[in-house]
């Protein structure tokens, strides 16, 4: 089995258009869940969202590109460009076919879909734009990334709601570890601020009227966010041989299904994902230093996640550092795992735990060592990144700090 290095990171979200901008805000504990640009008419029951505030597509794409690609795909491509550029990898020669693209997205091109419906059902225009299918398909981002970089190996997209990009990263990790490919661009993206989708979330009654406060006693739900995270995963020896700078390592992946209820979380499923991820990494639970929690800020998730962490980590649960960065960049659904994996790798690299922002007072039912409101310096080796999806599908990654070069 091959070791899997991370040699590039890319991020576009409410926190910024690059990894560097986003990291500054992550360590500052800056909540970017702010009043939405379009409050809805009539107004949505929630005022705030975590839009990719500074993202201007024309800074990165031509007008013609924008005809073919919609927002979730644009975000994916921009994050992929950053990760590939940082890694310095060139997909040439054999690497063209021995590289993969694996992305996650919960819903794909929702804006385009809704525009089509507006024409059909509101305006009674039966002709729908011919690019509706390629703009809408959930693999639009993966396909463009593959095209743009000339990656000819496996390329596909996984849709498992809020676990999509952890499933994508886990698959890509195994592809590299098993030697099926040498390198992979992997992560996910989501663009949620389309009216139909926002109305659907409103109807679910899980969105906080103000901001997301994971693990706080007065939490009122999640805050929606958009964005993309991408990682360049690479065969360790390959990265070393070409002199690449190694930013971190993926060492384990685990997944499970609750088989319990379509939306209500349970303890066993998330616990199993963490358990299998730790086993896959070949470590013991006491080695885990930090958990970037799924931590959505709903009443149900944060309690069951606490119990699941306790079930898997045992005594270690008393001291393991836990935070939910969703309190700053929102719940980016199909992009959540990727954005949070980037946050974990940076936390390990810099020895700084990004906090849970908006934290008010602890909930006795969430009695973990929550890093609240202010960044916490800590020497760490191993982090878990959790995602638990509606539908009961759970995926956990195990990430490790890179040895000093």
């Amino acid at each position, binding site marked *: 089995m091959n070791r899997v290095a991370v040699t590039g990171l890319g991020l576009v979200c409410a926190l910024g258009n690059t990894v560097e901008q986003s990291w500054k805000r992550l360590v500052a504990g800056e909540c970017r869940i702010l009043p939405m640009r379009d409050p809805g008419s009539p107004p949505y*029951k929630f005022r705030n969202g975590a839009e990719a505030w500074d993202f201007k597509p024309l800074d990165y794409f031509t007008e013609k590109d924008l005809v073919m690609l919609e927002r979730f795909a644009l975000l994916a491509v921009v994050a992929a460009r950053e990760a590939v550029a940082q890694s310095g990898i060139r997909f040439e020669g054999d690497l063209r076919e021995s590289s993969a693209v694996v992305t996650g997205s919960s819903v794909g091109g929702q804006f385009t879909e809704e525009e089509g419906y507006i024409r059909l059902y509101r305006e009674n225009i039966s002709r729908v734009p011919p690019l509706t299918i390629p703009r809408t398909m959930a693999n639009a981002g993966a396909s463009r990334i593959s095209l743009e970089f000339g990656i000819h190996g496996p390329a596909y997209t996984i849709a498992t709601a809020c676990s999509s990009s952890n499933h994508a990263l886990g698959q890509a990790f195994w592809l590299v570890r098993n030697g099926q490919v040498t390198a992979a661009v992997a992560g996910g993206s989501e663009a949620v601020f389309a009216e139909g989708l926002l109305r659907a979330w409103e*109807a*679910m*009654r899980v969105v906080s*009227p103000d901001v997301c406060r994971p693990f706080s006693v007065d939490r*009122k*739900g999640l805050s929606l966010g958009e964005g993309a995270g991408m990682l360049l995963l690479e065969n360790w020896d390959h990265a070393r041989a070409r002199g690449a700078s190694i930013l971190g390592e993926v060492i384990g992946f685990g997944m499970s299904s609750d088989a319990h*209820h*379509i*939306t*209500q979380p349970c303890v066993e499923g998330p616990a199993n994902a963490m358990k299998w991820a730790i086993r896959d990494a070949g470590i013991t639970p006491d080695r885990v230093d930090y958990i970037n929690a799924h931590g959505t800020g709903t*009443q*149900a998730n944060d309690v069951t996640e606490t119990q699941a962490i306790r079930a898997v980590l045992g005594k270690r649960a008393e001291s393991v550092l836990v935070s939910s960065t969703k309190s700053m960049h929102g719940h980016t659904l199909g992009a959540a795992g990727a954005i949070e994996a980037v946050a974990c790798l940076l936390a390990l690299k810099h020895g700084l735990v990004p906090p849970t922002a908006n934290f008010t007072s602890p909930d006795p039912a969430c009695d973990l060592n929550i890093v609240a409101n202010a960044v916490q310096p800590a020497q760490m080796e191993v982090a878990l990144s959790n995602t638990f999806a509606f539908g009961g599908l759970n995926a956990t990654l195990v990430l490790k700090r890179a040895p000093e070069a």
Partner: protein
Amino acid sequence: MPEHVETDELADKVLRVIAHTQRIPPESVSLDSTFEALKIDSLDGINIVFELEKEFNIEIPDDGVQNLRSVRDTVEGVRKLVRAKDLAVPPGAA
């Protein structure tokens, strides 16, 4: 066994909405039924509330939904909101 159960038009409507939303026979729902006994979980709850909002033209707050445990809670909650709505209409305005 509950004795003769007091019902009224509003309560009947709420019971019918619950039965319809759950796809269960109306006679299986009474004021004394708990959500647990009717196998109504949180997701069913928001579905019921969605239908009640439409039926009574009211808005049920999110935190109100989480506290619903029984048919009687639901009827009383709806009654309060309907009364509040009626009071908000100045006399003669309707």
